[in-house]
């Protein structure tokens, strides 16, 4: 039996690699001028209006800076309690049962109010960080 066949594709010039960035401080990544992405209609039922949203990744680590203030909403309080230890946006989304986009809006408010820190992920670079790759390999070998 012969398997079905495909034809490989090439990297698209309109989708350049993100420019190499210096080591990321504990700040959400700013918009970097890549092509605009589709922006589907999103849900804001929890998080309210659409302010300037931080660029949060699924694996941005969120850490609470304080205990929940009395003014915090139930959702904000829940995030602050969950993030006493670092927790990814994806895990917060899973535990709180909120869609990712709703979660990012909620978190952006908390970042703006300086109630949480965001620790940016390490993303793939045009010039890969070999020591990073080796660290991941060693970690996996210990599994």
């Amino acid at each position, binding site marked *: 039996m012969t398997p079905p066949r495909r*034809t490989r*594709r*090439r990297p698209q010039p309109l989708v350049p690699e993100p420019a190499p960035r210096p080591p990321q401080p504990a700040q959400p990544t700013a918009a970097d001028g890549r092509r605009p992405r589709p922006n589907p209609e999103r849900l804001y039922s929890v998080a309210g209006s659409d302010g300037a949203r931080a660029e949060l990744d699924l694996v941005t680590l969120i850490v609470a800076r304080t205990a929940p203030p009395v003014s915090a909403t139930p959702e904000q309080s829940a995030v602050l309690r969950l993030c006493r230890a*670092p927790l990814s946006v994806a895990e917060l989304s899973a535990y709180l049962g909120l869609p990712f986009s709703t979660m990012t809006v909620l978190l952006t408010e908390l970042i703006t109010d300086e109630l949480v820190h965001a620790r940016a992920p390490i993303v793939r670079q045009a010039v890969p960080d070999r020591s990073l790759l080796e660290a991941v390999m060693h970690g996996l070998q210990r599994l």
Partner: protein
Amino acid sequence: MDFKGSDTLPGPRTEDQLPHTAQAAVKIVIVGGFGVGKTTMVGSVSEIRPLTTEETMTQAGIGVDDDYGSDSKTATTVAMDFGRISITEKLVLYLFGTPGQERFWFLWNGLFEGALGAVVLVDTRRLEVSFDVMGRLEEGGVPFVVAVNSFPDAPRYPVEELRTALDLGPDIPIIDCDVRRRASSKDVLLTLMGFLHSLAMSGALI
């Protein structure tokens, strides 16, 4: 811990909490068609029970999926399972299993772009369902390896025949695996990391 409210709020078990030293995370995506074993693979190597994150949007934003119902404003939810592996006290790896269907990709802005690399999990009974996602990864310059999940009744092709069918260059690893086994899933991830490392050594990363 004096985790106030921990008895009423869902959250990680104490032993599943990351240390405060955790500074940054990296991610690897596992892509493939429904039922190919993405979640099984995530679960076999994850240190936490696999979790599910969702993204929700209205159908109007997709323009497809008319079969979901006549109401054009019906929300469509796409779920993605993920797991976690602590690499060091400072570094955490997340594994995301994501559907291969093209209409889901843009829901996860940045998922592929920031990933170290990808595992394309294929089932030789339905090889063609992975074609689009491979093309997408190639277009985005995301390095990937191909892992063939060995189902008992699936046709078995020699690796070179698969390489030809999938139109993959000679450098891209193609490996057999049984994702139910932790050791096998670990081998797949190590194959990907070895591939990424060789690209880094040769300076050939696209």
